[in-house]
Each structure stands twice: as C-alpha cells, then as structure tokens.
C-alpha cells in the first residue's frame, strides 16, 4: 500500500482509504467471500472510524429510518448509541482486541462541557488513535448540527477540546451551512489537526400516492451517489482555505470517485453509504487507487489538491 500511504495531522495512515462513521462496523470484517476468505481484510483500511457516541445512551428515532431515493439514501437514525459508559465498557474492549489499524472514535455532545467531559474520559485509552468531533449530525436536536453551523461556536468548542487531547483531532463539518470556508477556518484556528467533510445533507422523500413522508422524522440526512458533486465542491472550498488535512466523504463508491476527492484537496477518503451497497467497496477502492498510482508511478500525496 506504499503508493497510497497518507496522513491526517498527527496520524499516519497505511492506506488513504477509511470508513465513514455510522456506516461501518466490525461485522464487515467477519463477512466472507465465496471461497470463505475475508471479504474485507482490515489492512486495506487506513483507519477505522466508529459510530458517533453521545454522553448519555440514545435510543434513536422511530422507524422508518431509511429510504433509498433515485440517487442516494435518506436516513434518520438519530445517533442510536450505547452512550459513553456503555461504549467504554462494552465496545472499546472488543474494538481493541479486533483492530490492528488505528481507531478513530466519533463523538458528539449536547453542550461544550459534555464534549469536554467525553474527550477527557477517552483521552487515557491507548487504543484510541484519534477523535472525530461530530458537530454535523442533522438527525438530532441538541447535539450535532447545533454546534456546527456557527463558526464562533465551533471555535469555542474545538479550542477547549484541543487543549485536552494530544491525539488526532478531526472536526467533522456539515454541508448544511452557507459558507464552509468559515467553518473550516474556525476549526483550524481553534486547533483541529484535520477536518472531515461532508456529513449528510438535509433530505426528504414523499410517497406521492399517499402523501406520506417516507421517514418517521419526515426530514433526514441524504448521502450516497447523489451527494458527490456537492461534497466535491465543499471539499475543494475547504481545501482552498485550510492548511490542515481533509478526510473527505460523500458519495464515494469507486476508486475513481476517491481520486476525484484527492484532486479536490483530500488527504484521505472515507467510504460510507457504498458499504451497504457493496460490502467489499473499501477494499476495491484501496486496491484501485493503489494499482492506478503504481501503473502511473505516482504517489497519492502528489495528487492532493492538484485539480486543474
């Protein structure tokens, strides 16, 4: 994987391909192909990003929580998770035992103090290589996007978190803002060591026959193929102003998609919705990028932000 090694701030990645929070789990490593071999060897991934946890456990939103549309997926999971305590007690030991790639823990809080308390509690764990601060979930009221839509709020929050952690600190931004550059700059100035974008876009689907909204929450988060051009533009805009590396996601299904994000300014990419459609996608993407770079005798880093 020499051709596709990369880095996010303080974190070296053996592969520039990672997975997007909430769309991947250890279950994927247990899947087999027709010959009984692992479908998805961990080694092809640069890092494992876990599903966002919150301080208190969250039951999530009522069903239906999913709807596939013409060109993507709507979800309103509502950050269903076991809470910080449950995660540290039950999930982290399993992740520690299973993973031999860096673990990035995604988390979100309902107040600045809660975010700080969470990162303080997790900081001592050696098995955590970095944090992804989720200030961009569209499916919960108090957490998430309430923090990610105002540069001042981002700055205040990230400054406090940066003072607590020595690990990789990724701030995951929302596409549902007027000016992504302001958000990216705020996170960078406050001490984020890298940025992740994009989280899902607001989206909705209605059954015209009945007039019923397809999600119980009516509006949810839109991801998958249809969001790729939006994500590319936002990654490009953020990369124009930010000096810190960008972990890009949004509609990446093939290695060619991934390469486009590298050109737009990403140092690494994350595979999200594509995992559901093709459970082997991250491996194929990593292999495709590797083979392309090898065939052209270039390193992936030489293509970052080189859009013409």
């Amino acid at each position, binding site marked *: 994987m020499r051709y596709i090694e990369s880095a996010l701030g303080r974190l070296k990645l053996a592969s520039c391909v990672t997975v997007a929070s*909430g769309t991947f789990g250890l279950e994927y490593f247990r899947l087999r192909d027709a010959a009984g071999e692992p479908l998805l060897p961990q080694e092809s991934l640069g890092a494992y990003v876990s599903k966002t946890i919150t301080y208190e456990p969250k039951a999530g939103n*009522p069903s239906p929580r*999913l*709807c596939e549309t013409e060109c993507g997926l709507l979800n309103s*999971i509502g950050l*269903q998770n076991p809470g910080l305590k449950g995660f540290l007690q039950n999930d982290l030991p399993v992740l520690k035992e299973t993973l031999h790639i860096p673990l990035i823990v995604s988390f979100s809080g309902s107040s600045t103090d809660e975010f700080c308390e969470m990162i303080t509690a997790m900081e001592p764990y050696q098995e955590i290589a970095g944090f992804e601060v989720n200030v961009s979930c569209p499916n919960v009221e108090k957490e998430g996007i309430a923090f990610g839509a105002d540069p001042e709020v981002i700055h205040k929050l990230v400054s406090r978190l940066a003072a607590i952690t020595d690990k990789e600190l990724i701030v995951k931004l929302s596409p549902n803002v007027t000016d992504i550059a302001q958000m990216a700059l705020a996170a960078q100035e406050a001490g984020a060591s890298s940025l992740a974008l994009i989280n899902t876009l607001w989206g909705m689907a209605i059954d015209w026959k009945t007039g019923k909204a397809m999600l119980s929450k009516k509006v949810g988060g839109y991801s998958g193929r249809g969001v790729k051009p939006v994500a590319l533009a936002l990654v490009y805009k953020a990369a124009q102003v930010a000096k810190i590396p960008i972990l890009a996601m949004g509609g990446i299904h093939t290695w060619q998609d991934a390469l486009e994000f590298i050109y737009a300014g990403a140092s690494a990419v994350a595979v999200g919705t594509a995992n*559901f*459609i093709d*459970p082997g996608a991250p491996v194929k993407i990593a292999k495709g990028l590797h083979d392309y770079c090898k065939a052209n005798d270039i390193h992936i880093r030489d293509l970052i932000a080189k859009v013409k």
Partner: protein
Amino acid sequence: MITRELLKVVDVSIPAPQYVKLKLDAGKPMENLLPGMFYELRAPSQAGRLFKPISILDVEDGCLSFLIKVVGAGTQAFTQVKAGDGVEALGPLGNGFPGIEGRRVLLVSGGAGYPPLAWLKRESHQAEFCLHLHGCASADEVFPCDLIYTADGSRGSKGLVTDSVESLIIEHKIDLVLSCGPIPMLAKMADICKQVEHYVSMEAYMACGIGVCHGCAIPVDQSYKLVCKDGPVFEANRIRWSEL
C-alpha cells in the same frame, strides 16, 4: 458464517401473478438454516442499489429457494432474471423461528409473509399439531396451505386471515403461534394472541442487513431492536405495536 457471493440461478418461475420464485445454487450444502432466516438479494439489473431482504422459502440439495412479491423496482427486477444468471446474495441473516417439536402450532401468514411459514409447515411432522392459515387479496395470491382467506372472497373464506384465529386457538388447544405478514396484520395477531406464546417475523426497511447502520430498528421492550440482527423474529408481546 455470513458470505457475500454471486449465486447462480437454477430455476425461475412465476407461481402467481405479481410473484416470482427463484431457486439459487448455493454451491455447497447449507446447514444450520432456520425458517425465518433471510438473505439480502439483488438482481443483476439493480447494480448500485440496496440489497432486498428476502426470507428463505426452502433449502434442498445445496439450493436455496425464495418467493418474492413484486412491490417496487427492487423486487420487480427479479422477474427479469433468467436461469444461469447470477444473483448477488448476502447471508444467511437473522435469527429464525423457535422450534415446533411437540408443540400445538398455528402458523399464520399474510401476502409475501408466506415463505417462512410454508417451510415450517413442511416440517410439521415434528409438531404434535400444525395448522397453516394464509391470507391474501384474491385467488391470484393463493399458495398451498391448510386454510385460505381472501379479502375479495375469490378463494377460501372471505375476510382476513386473522378472523378466526381466536376460535381456532381454543378449538385446537394451540400453544404456539408463529406469524409473518404486513405490520397491521401482525399487530392484530399480537392483540388476539396475548395469552398464547406468539412469535412474529417483522419487516423493516434495511440498508446493511448485518447490524451496522441501525436503520431497521423497531420498538421492542424499553428500546429499539434491529430487525436484521436481533430479529427478524421477535416475541410479539415485547413489541410496542402502537408506535409502528
């Protein structure tokens, strides 16, 4: 072990209008499968779309059979499949129904909920007593069973499959009810069968099928459970029906 592979189509048939039956070569003997378990399947023309959860109808000689009702694009695509084609499959998934050995069982299916109960009925020699009721819209959707109910009265009894469940439970001293079908039917079953051990196979919109995305959650006990991983079979009285 859950595998993701391309399974070769051995046989395709249209057993009823709006239904397609597929027989897929699993390439190996299939063990430890239970009625109620399912596969995530995808027809060749649906590349790039989500898989569709489909219950196992039958397993025999290394082949898996499925009975699929056409309701939208994903299921419609299975009608275009021909013998020799490859169908993408992820599975086997889910928990399956509890055993029926020595029990007095009532099997109740509605519409596309037929497959797991038809499989159980084929194993009914294990039970002390087993009666399979199937309900559907009209004679067009009728499949082999013991008692048939059609909404339009074109076959069997006119009415809903739930209509005589209460009296049949008493008449045949039923001690286990297993049901599968549309949610409103299952909710009605749960209401009728409160005093009897009752398991339902639930439906939910799925993305991953393996417990990762939390998209297929339904309200069970004090929280949400995942239909793909914790189910699809649940004890009926633990589901909070009013929230569905």
